[in-house]
């Protein structure tokens, strides 16, 4: 059911993305000073909008996690941060490519560029923390960090406003932006927003599966411990009340069990060594 909706939306969005790209590359009017290179705009700005939206969702999901402690909110926070970093990377790659042509340099420490880069760094550090924290505490620590990171965004922006800015000023809704261009931009923005949400959804489902698997592992380990305890029951029985044959079979089985385990160990070692030898040859 879920996956049907997902694939339906994906198919629709694929159409939107293809048509949007066609609009941006072919239909949109040629910009007077920058020429065709300006068309990067139609994939740069939508990626930025999508990335920032995803980071915002990450912040909300983190707050919800700290409040309700639901595994779903945690999975959503991870998914949106990771996909947000991907979109932010697109922004940081397409921007310099455009700037190389328009400004003559790949990069400058302009307000918006610096803010985006710091944003990217913040959320990469979030992902690093998720990867390296101890299993039980990951979600809580990550949620706390997400809140810190999100507070940092406006501060970074303010700090950078003291630089003179080179980046084109926002033009959406102003007469400086040709309405035709604006419509194409909006079209692309919607297409990319849906795209971002779909990838985040996909990542979310992956994370949910991972959470369920690890819960199942814990269950199985608990069952395994219980199974291992069963033979111990034997030890607690009063010696007289057990049929002597139980001792006999117990002895034989445990002896052969040990031999078998050792042989299996040797076999696996042999297999590994043979594989390594074959690889080296």
């Amino acid at each position: 059911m879920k996956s049907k909706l997902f694939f339906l939306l994906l198919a629709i969005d694929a159409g939107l993305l293809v048509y949007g790209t066609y609009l941006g590359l072919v239909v949109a009017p040629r910009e007077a000073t920058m020429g065709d290179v300006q068309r990067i705009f139609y994939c740069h700005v939508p990626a930025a909008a999508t990335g920032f939206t995803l980071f915002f969702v990450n912040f909300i999901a983190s707050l919800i996690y700290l409040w309700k402690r639901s595994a779903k909110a945690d999975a959503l926070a991870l998914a949106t941060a990771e996909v947000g970093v991907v979109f932010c990377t697109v922004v940081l790659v397409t921007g310099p490519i455009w700037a190389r042509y328009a400004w003559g340099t790949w990069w400058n420490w302009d307000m918006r560029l610096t803010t985006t880069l710091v944003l990217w760094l913040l959320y990469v550090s979030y992902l690093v923390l998720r990867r390296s924290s101890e299993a039980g505490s990951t979600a809580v620590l990550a949620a706390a960090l997400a809140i810190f990171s999100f507070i940092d965004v406006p501060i970074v922006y303010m700090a950078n406003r003291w630089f003179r800015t080179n980046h084109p000023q926002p033009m959406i809704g102003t007469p400086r932006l040709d309405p035709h261009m604006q419509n194409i931009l909006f079209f692309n923005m919607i297409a990319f927003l849906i795209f971002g949400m779909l990838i985040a959804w996909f990542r979310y489902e992956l994370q949910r599966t991972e959470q369920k698997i690890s819960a199942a592992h814990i269950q199985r380990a608990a069952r395994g411990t219980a199974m291992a305890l069963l033979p111990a029951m034997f030890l607690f029985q009063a010696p007289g009340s057990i049929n002597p044959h139980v001792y006999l079979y117990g002895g034989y089985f445990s002896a052969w069990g040990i031999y078998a385990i050792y042989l299996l160990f040797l076999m696996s070692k042999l297999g590994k060594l043979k594989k390594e030898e074959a690889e080296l040859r």
Partner: protein
Amino acid sequence: MSLSITRLTVVNVRKDLRLEWRSRDVFNSMLFFALLVVVVFSYAFDTGDSRPVMGGLIWIAFLFSTNMALNQSWARELRNGVLDAYRVSPAPAESLFLGKVLGNYLLVLLLECVMAPLFVVFYNLKSGGPLWQLAVVFLLGTWALVVNGTFFAAMSIRTKNRELMLPILLLPISLPAVYSMVEATSIVLNGDSSPWPYVKFLAGFCVIYTTACFLLFEIVLNAE
């Protein structure tokens, strides 16, 4: 028997400072590290007229040596299970946090006081602006580093690669603060314009993050 937060905080600070006073491990390594940074920089940069880069240089030295102190301050608590004991005790987590922050703050301020004459000697430093302005910048800048740093150090000791995580978490968050303290320091040293916009910004940063740290510290301490 109930103790006020103030009193618990004072107890925590005194304990930390006494431990540090007896071993002097952290302070000595911080001092030596900062000294090394000074020497390395004199090789790395042409120090003929060092004033333009001085603000950055001073803060880089302090930023990295603060990192050392912060890592150690929580590692000490981990060794004998003190953190677990704290978690089960009825004492409020805020007093533990505030105690740690104040202890580290005093330690780093002391380091800065010891290092200041060395900077003056090695780099022929002369301040263009009034010195009390510099003092304000350092008090605020150090607080900004230490309050966030103590919080993130508490977070990073919960991770697998403890010492490595702290700079990865702390530096991106602190970038706006680092930027404004470096700018303010350079402005005062050059004595050409007013550092107040930067100082105000730094003060705002301190207020916002001190609040955030206090709100979230208990959650991080008890994260399971």
